[in-house]
């Protein structure tokens, strides 16, 4: 782990990194353990998350910022899910990762704006919470943290094309979920 600090460019980044560790290590472990149900694996996920953080310190505003806290939590959740998938007997290969979906995305009309316009944050949060993890992850990095396709692809271990395809599918899923909510309201 000492090599992590060597990966950082400046004293400021090293100090910030240390502060993040001191501030969030227990919470991040709790989040990882909630996914993995294994204390040692949860520690591994936290270490992996801190390793990923060294490459994205530009996203970190300050140790106490809400955005930073959410960013650390998102990365930890992603790394924990990676560990969970790698230990699964049949690794999940999403059909959404088929780059052909990307071509479909270029042509299909997107009416999500219309669907979302009249809904409040809490309702949208409910629909997002019900989405499969891999869809919520891509939304989180692209929209909440406003990361580029390239950065998102790096964190998720996907190609940029696959990030686009997954984003397209995630939007469609959200649209379907919200349509159901609106129909129930009528």
């Amino acid at each position, binding site marked *: 782990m*000492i090599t992590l600090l060597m990966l950082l460019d400046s004293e400021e980044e090293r*100090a910030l990194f240390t502060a993040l560790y001191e501030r969030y290590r227990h919470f991040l472990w709790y989040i990882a353990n909630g996914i993995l149900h294994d204390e040692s694996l949860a520690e591994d996920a936290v270490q992996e998350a801190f390793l990923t953080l060294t490459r994205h310190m530009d996203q970190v505003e300050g140790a106490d910022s809400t955005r930073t806290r959410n960013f650390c939590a998102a990365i930890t959740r992603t790394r924990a899910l990676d560990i969970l998938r790698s230990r699964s007997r049949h690794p999940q290969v999403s059909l959404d990762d088929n780059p052909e979906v990307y071509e479909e995305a270029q042509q299909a009309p997107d009416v999500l704006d219309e669907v979302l316009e009249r809904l409040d944050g809490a309702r949208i949060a409910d629909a997002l919470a019900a989405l499969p993890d891999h869809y919520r992850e891509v939304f989180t990095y692209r929209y909440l943290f406003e990361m580029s396709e390239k950065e998102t692809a790096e964190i998720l271990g996907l190609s940029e094309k696959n990030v686009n395809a997954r984003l397209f599918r995630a939007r469609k899923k959200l649209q379907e979920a919200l349509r159901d909510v609106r129909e129930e309201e009528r």
Partner: protein
Amino acid sequence: MGKTVSEKKIQNGLQVLFDREWRELPPEGVIAQEHTFSDAFLASMRQMSRAAETPQPAGKRIPWKRYVSRFAAAAAVVLVVGLGARILLPGMAPKSMDNAVPAYSEAGAQEVRSGEMTENAYSGGAEPHRGTAAGVLSQEAGNASAGTGAAGVTPAEAETVPAVGDKTAAVRDYAGESAVADGLTVRVRLTGAGLQLTVINQTGKAVTAVYEGLAGNLPAPAPGERPELTVESGTESTLVVEETMPANDAGVYEAVVQIDGTEYRVELTPAS
């Protein structure tokens, strides 16, 4: 370029979701009491923190190069002393790999397949200082524990294996069960030359085994660099992977192999 309505709305929804989840977390003190990070993890992080806090002379960085060169010098001394001892003491020299591979014994394999642990089927425990043992996996074994041990490795044969530590082995899939197609046996051995993966194929068709790397030590070899083995039916073949085998925190060596497209975790547990 500005954000679309949906991007803003999703961002807002995600923010609400994060805040909600964060509120549901127990207080920090409760979590800290619930889990204490392992000593090794904490020690490394504390070391890291100290290194970061240590004031460095203006314009100078932490002298990592000095630390690395000291470590390299110490490693070189250990290597030279080790090699010298092996040359001066012939009894310590490793024997050839050909001698290290025990002959396959159908009787031994059959015993393990049927779930019986007999002397023939297990050498690691019977001869704990003779070095090695091999894991056997078959559909008939039924569970992983029945597959633990060495098929067809007699104590006499085990003596020819270079002493690299006492190991027993089990081959398991990710569900913790030993389940490969009928007639397929996988034997794993850890020797001084690395990991040996022997596939004995009585399935009636050729199978392919691919070594995927050590579990938990990613990245795995690139697809073109993965050692691969095609085994015709009615034959057995051994793949040798020259790799240092670091044990995980629990002292268990783990590797990943893929047989006909299904991944299996190979565990080599030091014998007690």
